[in-house]
């Protein structure tokens, strides 16, 4: 069902809003994509990685005749030192190769260079590391304990970042509450697991000394800036290319030590060097996420209205801080966005990022929001139970309903449909019919559960939002250059760096409507710092809002110029010119001219415009919006097998509002994929460390992304509330699917567990954990 468009201004757009096939696809379905690992190289690198989670390196013994790089070779290379100017952040440096100390299993200690991947691995096997191992800190709570060893000298108590907030009047309101409801939530560690692991290829050009780094990144320009900084080279001597990138989900946002080393090596060897990460490395040594303890308390009045929230967030950030977001990305987002879609005026939070001897944490789709949404939504269900209310009713009483809304933490929520999407979901899922079915099933010993999750998704936020976090780098704005070449074809060069999101297609749709041409005449160019304007890349549900906005600004300028050209050439008033079907037409006449001939004219017959128009047809747009909130209600229906603890998601429904939808097919695909990752987060995926800091889940049999079998059919329902904070009226939606699913699934599991008086507030809710919860409930009952 496509719901009636709320507030649609009914503007006559021909391409925006249509589910056209993707312009990206013909190459990708025929095997003609270009991925980093497809490139040939002279030298191949294999990293020797630490088998110890903590310790000091006594010696590194390398085989005779082998080229092996260690920290001793890299004295001129700076350490990666991300920075936040707020929240008691303690800058810690990460050497490109471990320098005397190892801090997690998988940390790169040496780099072997050989003529093939096989040979490099053979040599790496012969490198002998002599490390004096010390006892590692794996769990954040252990790292916080008094007397715990200090992982970095600059970060006493292992707290690297600490955010605190408390609204004025909090204590009085808290004291006035009718009920305080509390949840201790645990989110275990996950890995984003893009199907393409990381890869890099650095080629030295002897004619000019430049290096071209082709790599799997979501932020090519920032990679250039950062690597040039670390190596002390001119940025113009480095070209970074993100070719086709096989998924990122945040993991490919951060700067990898490996890429820095590759550029250094290409310059040292004056040759071509490549590294393709293997899956084991990806699982142990790329970037992890979501390892958090969240304690959340809600103070409610007698009518179950939420008065105040109090949160304690402990985020295990691993051994180092990621660049550019810093390891504040999880704890600080948790702090800023914890109140979610609810109207709550009082808020207190302590959010800490804690260093441990584990793989470094970085952004992963949704960042903290899958965790805080799951925590908050569990809290609301617990509160509903305490007040003997239906979970839907307690949400009705508390969801934000008037806009713009300024949150307790000062975030401004633009118009959204928290209540409407909830009601839509409730209607579509048919709660009474489900409750009847659930009752009937229970009588037969089958346990069904339903879970709701309502949430807000802050998307498309510009530089001020990053500045508010005190970030030394504020990756907010985007620039787009739109040009029409003399043959009439349109090219848009963008600073964003899509890798599966279909942005080439959606931006082409936006341009097509402005210029009156079909989208397939538009070529969107991205991912090459030599050809794309400086920009930040694709992450944080931002590209369609920010790069789309910049595209619209640039396209409007091109449109304005085309109209002027047409006005000259057709000798008509600008107001009478219409752009459509690849022509400029004079309204109400049969006079028209093709865009191609106008383009040819403005390049080659400039004198005809009598100095009134600049030569050429190329315009730039930059956009730095304040941010806009998407929202959704997710509903999961699960069947829980109490004997094994197995959970099957049998039905999944999403009612969502992401503002104007540019391409419904692509938008739906983003939600499907997001929900799959969220279900993986909720039920399956967990990086497990042993007590020594070794990883027990270093392959895809033990680390378990869902397969087609584990995925329910996802039913989608849309409301479109055009955003007032985004000039395309679109809101971002890349992360919403992942944000909502753990909450909906966990609430559904807990609903199914109701007859047993058991609860589970841990993700992933594995069969063993569910059985343990059931066993505990049984023990309690019999005691």
């Amino acid at each position: 069902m496509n719901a009636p468009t709320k507030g649609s201004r009914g503007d006559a757009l021909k391409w925006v809003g249509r589910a056209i096939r993707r312009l990206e696809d013909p190459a990708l379905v025929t095997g003609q994509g270009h991925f980093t690992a497809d490139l040939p190289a002279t030298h191949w690198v294999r990293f020797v990685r630490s088998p110890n989670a903590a310790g000091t390196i006594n010696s590194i013994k390398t085989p005779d005749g082998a080229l092996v790089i260690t920290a001793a070779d890299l004295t001129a290379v700076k350490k990666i030192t991300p920075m936040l100017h707020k929240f008691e952040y303690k800058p810690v440096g990460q050497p490109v190769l471990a320098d005397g100390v190892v801090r997690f299993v998988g940390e790169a200690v040496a780099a072997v260079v050989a003529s093939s991947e096989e040979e490099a691995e053979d040599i790496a096997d012969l490198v002998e590391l002599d490390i004096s191992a010390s006892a590692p800190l794996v769990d954040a709570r252990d790292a916080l304990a008094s007397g715990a060893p200090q992982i970095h000298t600059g970060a006493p108590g292992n707290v690297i970042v600490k955010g605190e907030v408390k609204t004025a009047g909090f204590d009085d309101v808290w004291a006035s509450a009718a009920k305080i409801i509390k949840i201790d939530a645990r989110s275990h560690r996950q890995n984003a697991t893009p199907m393409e692991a990381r890869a890099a290829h650095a080629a030295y050009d002897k004619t000019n000394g430049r290096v071209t780094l082709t790599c799997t990144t979501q932020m090519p320009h920032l990679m250039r800036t950062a690597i040039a900084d670390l190596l002390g080279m001119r940025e113009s001597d480095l070209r970074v290319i993100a070719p086709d990138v096989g998924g990122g989900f945040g993991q490919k946002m951060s700067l990898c030590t490996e890429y820095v080393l590759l550029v250094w090596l290409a310059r040292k060897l004056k040759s071509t060097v490549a590294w393709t990460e293997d899956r084991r490395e990806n699982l142990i040594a790329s970037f992890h996420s979501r390892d958090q303890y969240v304690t959340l308390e809600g103070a409610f009045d007698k009518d179950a209205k939420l008065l105040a929230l109090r949160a304690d967030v402990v985020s295990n950030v691993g051994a180092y801080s990621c660049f550019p977001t810093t390891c504040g990305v999880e704890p600080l987002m948790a702090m800023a966005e914890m109140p979610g879609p609810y109207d709550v005026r009082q808020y207190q939070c302590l959010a800490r990022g804690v260093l441990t001897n584990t793989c470094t944490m970085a952004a992963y789709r949704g960042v903290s929001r899958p965790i805080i949404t799951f925590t908050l939504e569990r809290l609301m269900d617990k509160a509903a139970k305490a007040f003997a209310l239906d979970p839907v009713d307690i949400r009705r009483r508390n969801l934000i309903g008037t806009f713009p809304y300024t949150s307790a933490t000062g975030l401004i929520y633009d118009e959204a449909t928290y209540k409407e999407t909830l009601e839509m979901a409730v209607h579509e899922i048919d709660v009474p019919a489900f409750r009847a079915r659930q009752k009937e099933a229970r009588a037969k010993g089958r346990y069904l559960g339903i879970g709701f999750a309502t949430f807000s998704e802050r998307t498309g936020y510009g530089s001020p939002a990053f500045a508010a976090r005190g970030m030394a780098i504020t990756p907010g704005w985007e620039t787009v250059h739109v040009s029409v070449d003399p043959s009439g074809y349109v090219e848009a060069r963008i600073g964003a760096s899509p890798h599966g999101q279909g942005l080439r297609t959606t931006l082409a749709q936006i341009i097509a409507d402005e210029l009156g041409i079909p989208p397939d005449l538009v070529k969107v160019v991205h991912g090459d710092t030599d050809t794309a304007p400086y920009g930040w890349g694709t992450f944080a549900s931002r590209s369609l809002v920010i790069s789309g906005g910049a595209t619209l600004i640039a396209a409007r300028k091109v449109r304005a110029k085309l109209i002027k050209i047409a006005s000259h050439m057709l000798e008509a008033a600008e107001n009478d010119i219409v752009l459509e079907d690849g022509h400029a037409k004079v309204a109400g006449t049969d006079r028209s001219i093709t865009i191609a001939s106008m383009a040819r004219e403005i390049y080659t017959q400039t004198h005809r415009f009598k100095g009134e128009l600049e030569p050429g047809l190329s315009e730039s747009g930059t956009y730095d919006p304040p941010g806009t909130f998407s929202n959704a209600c997710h509903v999961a229906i699960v069947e829980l097998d109490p004997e094994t603890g197995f959970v099957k998601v049998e039905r999944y429904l999403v009612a969502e509002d992401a503002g104007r939808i540019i391409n419904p097919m692509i938008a739906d695909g983003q939600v499907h994929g997001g929900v799959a990752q969220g279900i993986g987060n909720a039920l399956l995926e967990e990086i497990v460390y042993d007590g020594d800091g070794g990883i027990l889940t270093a392959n895809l049999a033990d680390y378990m992304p869902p397969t087609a079998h584990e995925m329910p059919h996802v039913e989608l329902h849309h409301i479109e509330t055009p955003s007032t904070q985004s000039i395309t009226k679109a809101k971002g939606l890349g992360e919403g699917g992942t944000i909502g699913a753990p909450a909906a699934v966990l609430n559904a599991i807990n609903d199914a567990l109701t007859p047993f008086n058991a609860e589970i507030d841990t993700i992933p809710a594995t069969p063993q954990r569910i059985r343990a919860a059931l066993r505990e409930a049984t023990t309690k009952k019999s005691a």
Partner: protein
Amino acid sequence: MKPAPFVRHVPRTLQQALAMLSQLAGQDGRILAGGQSLVPIMAFRLAKPAHLIDINEVEGLDRLDSDGKALTIGARVRHAAFHGPVVDNPLAALLTYVARHIAHYPIRMRGTFCGSLAHADPASEWCLTTATLGATMIARSTRGTREIAAKDFFDGIMSTALAEDELLAEVRLPLLAADAKFGFNEFSRRAGDFAMASSLVAYRVVDSKIAEARVGVGGAEPSPRRIAEAEAALNGQPPGDAAFRAAALAASDAVDPLEDHQTNAEYRRDLVRVVVRRALEHSLQ
């Protein structure tokens, strides 16, 4: 994650294969059949054989036939061979049902029945099948031919009674009685993953009572095996809930569970109880 170097040898006849194995076993030589278990552990360099004797070209090892008493399965017979019925006996349906639980379709195209046994993963469906049904393993070497009963064959996690110079040339799987009933159940978190516990059962019903019960449990202990206590709980009882529950409980009490990060002993026992009962329930469907 590239395998360490090895030398490949390609025998055409069984004799050649055995001669090579005899010569190379002591030099870290191994048999390569389907490779679906061996190649991954080579990729992780958990195995670094110096020599691989690739038996995929060996004549005669693709034997899959019955003499009316047992089904003979040669070393080159792939899992996918059991996607359809292979013999006119209830065993065929059992094998077809079990086969579809093995990993995934492309893996079944290459992986072999005998290779699974020689690899001896505790969770292997075929190891469970042969242990439960009392298969005879035919081990051949230049020294001669040895018949090894399934119960003596599996010797712990990824360990068997095969000597290093012996090739598991074929397996004889006894046919089931024409009126035999069987049931299978396994538990894993994702489709196609290794079972965290599995059970295969077979029995006859004589005078409305269970007879000749076989209850096998896999994935729970270092090797799959028949659980005598569970069989005793079934024999002489009418098939049905009471007997099935008693047998399931007996099995879960009898096992000495393996533990790993997602399965402690208590939970593994839970799973054993469930898969045995569900396998028995499946036998009635």
